[in-house]
């Protein structure tokens, strides 16, 4: 195992896949000469040249669409968004075209494209830079959505995403890029899309948390352990396809569940998991599923308001206490 920063794990995945397959290229704002807004593509230009590492104008709709057309016509683009908050401008290409072209032409088109970049909030950036979009994209058929929490997952899953013949949204976090973690040194390290992971075993409550929220859940679990509550944390890693059996099996053991999600509450990941659990694990529930999400409010700027807005360990602990009837 090597200890890598999150951004290094991303870079390794891209690097390895570009070395492996000539048709893979990366484009996005500041990916080439600037070496990546978050240095996730550092050194790639030097290694692969201007043909395969391409700076784009600030033109999300335009370059996302060019990516879609290139994917249709035989290439394997990695389209980097500086943040998924900007990808909203390209949503027509992702939602109306990448996800649908294959189906509406009766399977004549395949779409091996990865849209990647940081998702959700990153501190005091205000309302337009702070939204988590994984649930939104997962709503649409034809898209796969990954939002990883640790460098190891990021590397293995990004490599899978680049090799996938379907459109994949791969989400990261500005705040996690510098985070270090052990990454497998296995040659050609691949994690299959759609497999979650039990990141902490426990018997009292299942906490489902992905992306940045995994770390919040982890913090809460450490606190709760001192109180004698044994938390099991499941990181689905892939939002869609969802590893539902892993979650259900855990709940059969713990009988309680809290979902921690960085999206807003309405019709989000947490809502979906809650529904699925009541359907698949109804007889195993000892308490209603609880969720910790953003409030139904835009991201504020002021530090105190922002802190109140973002889910934290205390909220997770409160929710765990609720489902374990400890309050």
């Amino acid at each position: 195992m090597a200890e890598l920063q999150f951004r290094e794990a991303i870079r390794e995945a891209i690097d390895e896949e570009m070395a492996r397959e000539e048709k893979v290229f990366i484009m996005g704002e500041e990916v080439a000469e600037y070496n990546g807004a978050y240095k996730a593509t550092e050194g790639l230009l030097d290694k692969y040249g201007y043909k395969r590492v391409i700076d784009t104008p600030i033109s999300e709709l335009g370059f996302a669409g060019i990516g879609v057309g290139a994917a249709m016509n035989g290439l394997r683009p990695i389209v980097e968004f500086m943040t998924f908050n900007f990808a909203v401008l390209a949503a027509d290409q992702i939602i109306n075209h990448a996800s649908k072209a294959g189906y509406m032409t009766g399977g004549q088109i395949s779409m091996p494209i990865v849209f990647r970049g940081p998702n959700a909030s990153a501190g005091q950036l205000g309302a337009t830079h702070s939204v988590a979009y994984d649930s939104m994209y997962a709503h649409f058929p034809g898209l796969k959505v990954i939002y990883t929490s640790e460098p190891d997952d990021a590397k293995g899953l990004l490599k899978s995403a680049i090799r996938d013949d379907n459109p994949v949204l791969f989400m990261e976090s500005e705040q996690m890029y510098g985070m270090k973690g052990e990454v497998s040194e296995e040659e050609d390290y691949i994690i299959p899309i759609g497999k979650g992971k039990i990141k902490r075993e426990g018997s009292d409550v299942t906490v489902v948390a992905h992306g940045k929220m995994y770390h919040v859940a982890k913090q809460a679990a450490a606190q709760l352990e001192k109180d004698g509550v044994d938390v099991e944390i499941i990181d689905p890693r892939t939002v869609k396809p969802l590893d539902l059996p892993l979650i259900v099996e855990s709940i059969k053991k713990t009988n309680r569940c809290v979902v921690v999600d960085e999206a807003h509450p309405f019709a989000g990941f947490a809502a979906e998991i809650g529904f699925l659990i009541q359907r698949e694990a109804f007889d195993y529930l000892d308490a209603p599923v609880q969720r910790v999400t953003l409030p139904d409010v835009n991201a504020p700027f002021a530090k105190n308001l922002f802190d109140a807005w973002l889910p934290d360990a205390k909220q997770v602990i409160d929710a765990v206490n609720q489902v374990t009837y400890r309050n």
Partner: protein
Amino acid sequence: MAIKIEMPKLSDTMEEGVIAAWNVQEGDKVSAGDIIAEVETDKATMEVEAFDEGTVLKILVDEGDAVPLGGLMAVLGEEGEDISEILENAGSSGSGKSEKKSEAKESVSEEKEEASTSGGGATLTSPKSESSTSGDTAASTGKHGRILASPLARKMAEDKGIDLSRVNGSGPNGRIVKVDIEEYKETAPAAAASAQTFQSLESKEIKVSQMRKTIARRLSESKFTNPHFYETIDIDMKAAIAARKQMNDANEDVKISFNDIVVKACSVALTRHPYVNSSWHDDVIKQHGDVHVAVAVAIEEGLMTPVIRHSDKKGLAQISSETRELAGLARDRKLQPEQMEGSTFTISNLGMFGIEEFTAIINPPNACILAVGAIRDVPVVENGEVVPGKRMKVTLSSDHRIVDGAKAAEFLNTVKNLLENPLSMLL
């Protein structure tokens, strides 16, 4: 606003009901849940409950009269309220329109729900339960009479055969959760041990359940209106014991109890003493053509009296199996009204608790009830020698309006003879 009390649908097949009794008079104030009348349906005598608060402004039907389903029986309202319009329309309201039928159906189901909550297991409320919101019934019973339990708790209880109504919920709103089921069995014996710590039990007010109310009303009525008298007789049970052993040994499937033998003996005796198999109806004494013996069954929440119909015509094996089945249903609160109605005589047996003898209160509208004590080992004198004997005391409570002392004694002697010579029951 005035509220019409209409004949509810109290059985699947009923088309009309006879007002057996009004429990209220015009001018009485009633609250929701009060039993305002008793109605004889085609199946049983059922209680009619008020669903609203108010004053009884008008009673439109006399006791003994029949009212079609949905027909107007009475009017509730505020004192002095003008109900002339309702009364004018009363003629057309007795036609049992389907609309009214459905209303009646609703009231029945509400009543049933109410009845099932009344079992709340008040006596089981453990001192531990602090979260009990109502404090008066089982904490797990919600506002709408449902037992609140997590899906897991329900499944666990089902798997373990635990009656949720007996479990205290420690969750929000008294929800029964996993831990409550897990600790349910564990705490039962533990409670006895912890008694040594001399912890005080919590003082509390326990709301009177509908069943308790019914027991209270019917038995007080019986005790205070029926002139009871009591006669006790001591019965030699040696022959009965031998006969029972023989029967049970002969057939593995049969497990006849002493109570079954007493039921059979009484049933046969009742055919020979029809005045005991009677009811008081003020102007008339009704001697019943059939013998239906009720057996008192103690359940957690109170007492139920399922009826063995035509018990005189049934063999011991059948009486035995029916009694066991009915007692089971009674404990599960699953007895249907028709399984509790129509008794002509009742037997109450506390022998299994070692009670030597006791007196029971007559179960109306019966004329008599037999209280059965335990079979004792006693020294008896036989042929001038003291030998070990088996004796059982039974006490007959009789309504003196129907049965006189000598008649009661004759009946008791018949019962005694039958039990002492069990083979004669077969005659």
